């Protein structure tokens, strides 16, 4: 496979996201999506008329129609929370191939408003044979939590990983969140706090689990040529790749190995760099075990050694591997498909806009999305102009 054509050919030039310490936003649906797109385009110094590509984890044509634009490129790939990293891979390749020039990717989800006001969109109906209903639901799993609990149980049995080690990931996410005024939870927590929180699905405690909040975000991706004269420093896509291997947890071949073991090395290969070169890791943390598996599968440590790797607090502020600097899905925001926020925060770090949580001298960031139940990953390697 050629690895030369995508590297540095496209750049993120605008981002936006919305989150609130209350966990609830004031608008929703297409209105919220349009607000995010407008804000990301403003950030990029571009207008709707420049946009010729649209990505979302649903019906991209519906958004294009709402905006009144006629894109040359759409991607409605849905692979859960990693959809947005996968979209960046596809859009960067499309830009490199000359298929389109300015792509907006958007996400909005408001479970809290929807619970209060009722859903905005009626169900689209069944999506074929329901494997989960026939072969899993009768046994009483609490999805998606049960899937991750089973993976954690297996990792603990196979490698001796402890609850204390998993808790450390939640503690470090909260240390970052303390520096983010928009984070849902900012009060410090300890390993003991995590272990003392309710455990309804063993071995995961409540503080091992991500939040449920409203949230939204958007990005603008354009060609390297057009990126150069934008108001903000371009953040280049150096590499991107996708991994898929199951949809329901009982079909996952090995509960200790995610498809990130495929997408991670492939994305690093495209970028021509390795884990040691990463300054900021934005890694999907739906649960503490999710983030631990990513560290192993992306090659930051060997398989089975994730527990010992995180113990010293290296993921937190001042640590050797700053991870999830916005506070992550564990403490910042998690509206269901969190991958959009990985891209937004990675971009802000590489622009030097991190404020109190800025990682000094950050040149390379990875946004690693994971959707479904450890089902699909999208790894995007991003770099500043100095890295191209």
């Amino acid at each position, binding site marked *: 496979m050629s690895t030369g054509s995508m590297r540095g050919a496209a750049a993120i030039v605008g981002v936006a996201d919305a989150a609130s310490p209350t966990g609830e936003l004031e608008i929703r649906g297409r209105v919220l999506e349009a607000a995010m797109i407008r804000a990301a385009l403003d950030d990029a110094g571009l207008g709707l008329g420049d946009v010729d590509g649209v990505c979302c984890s649903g019906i991209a044509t519906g958004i294009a129609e709402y905006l009144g634009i006629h894109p040359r490129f759409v991607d409605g790939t849905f692979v859960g929370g990693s959809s947005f990293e996968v979209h960046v891979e596809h859009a960067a390749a499309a830009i490199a191939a000359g298929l389109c020039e300015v792509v907006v990717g958007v996400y909005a989800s408001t479970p809290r408003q929807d619970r209060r006001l009722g859903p905005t969109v009626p169900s689209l109906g069944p999506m074929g044979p329901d*494997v989960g209903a*026939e*072969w899993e639901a*009768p046994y009483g799993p609490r*999805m998606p939590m049960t899937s991750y609990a089973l993976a954690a149980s297996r990792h603990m049995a196979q490698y001796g990983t402890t609850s204390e080690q998993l808790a450390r990931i939640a503690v470090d996410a909260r240390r970052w969140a303390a520096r983010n005024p928009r984070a849902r939870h900012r009060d410090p927590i300890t390993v003991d706090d995590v272990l003392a929180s309710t455990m309804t699905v063993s071995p995961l405690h409540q503080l091992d689990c991500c939040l449920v909040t409203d949230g939204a975000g958007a990005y603008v991706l354009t060609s390297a040529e057009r990126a150069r004269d934008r108001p903000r420093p371009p953040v280049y896509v150096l590499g991107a790749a996708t991994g898929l291997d199951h949809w329901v947890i009982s079909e996952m071949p090995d509960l200790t190995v995610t498809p990130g073991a495929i997408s991670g090395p492939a994305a690093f290969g495209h970028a021509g760099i390795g884990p040691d070169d990463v300054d900021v890791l934005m890694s999907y943390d739906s649960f503490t075990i999710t983030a631990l598996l990513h560290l192993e599968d992306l090659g930051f440590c060997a398989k089975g050694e994730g527990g010992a790797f995180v113990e010293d607090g290296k993921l937190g502020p001042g640590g050797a591997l700053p991870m999830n600097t916005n506070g992550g899905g564990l403490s910042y925001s998690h509206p269901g498909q969190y991958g959009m926020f990985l891209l937004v925060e990675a971009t802000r770090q590489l622009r030097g806009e991190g404020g109190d949580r800025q990682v000094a001298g950050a040149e390379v960031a990875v946004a690693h999305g994971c959707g479904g139940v450890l089902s699909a990953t999208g790894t995007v390697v991003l770099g500043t102009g100095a890295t191209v």
Partner: protein
Amino acid sequence: MTTRREPPLSDEARPFWDATRDQRFVLPWCTTCDAAIWYPRTACPRCLGDTVEWREDAGGGTVYAASVHTRPAPGRAEEDGPYVVVLVDLDAGARMMSNVVGCPPEDVEIGLRVALAWEPLSDGRHLPVFRPA
């Protein structure tokens, strides 16, 4: 009888569910690969072959992963808890989700040998579960 979300009956799995009415555990096997297929489907996920035959199985297995649920899932009654959700590696070479019953849920450890058991469903079918062997 335990309250459960009862499984739908897909066309592809009809021979499996029909056999459960007599508490017989049958698995689809791909005759080309000579390997068990789970979950039941028309095409073998290894070779895409469609020569599938149903073979009766003893249902022995080993617990691969386990999670004790102290708060029951939607569809299960509060008094059903706590219960343990497991993935079982069948000796036949397939992996399925299930419950281990007949012992305290916290006693179910990964690596535990288990044997097949049945729980009745409202339409005459039975749901395969496991107990310590």
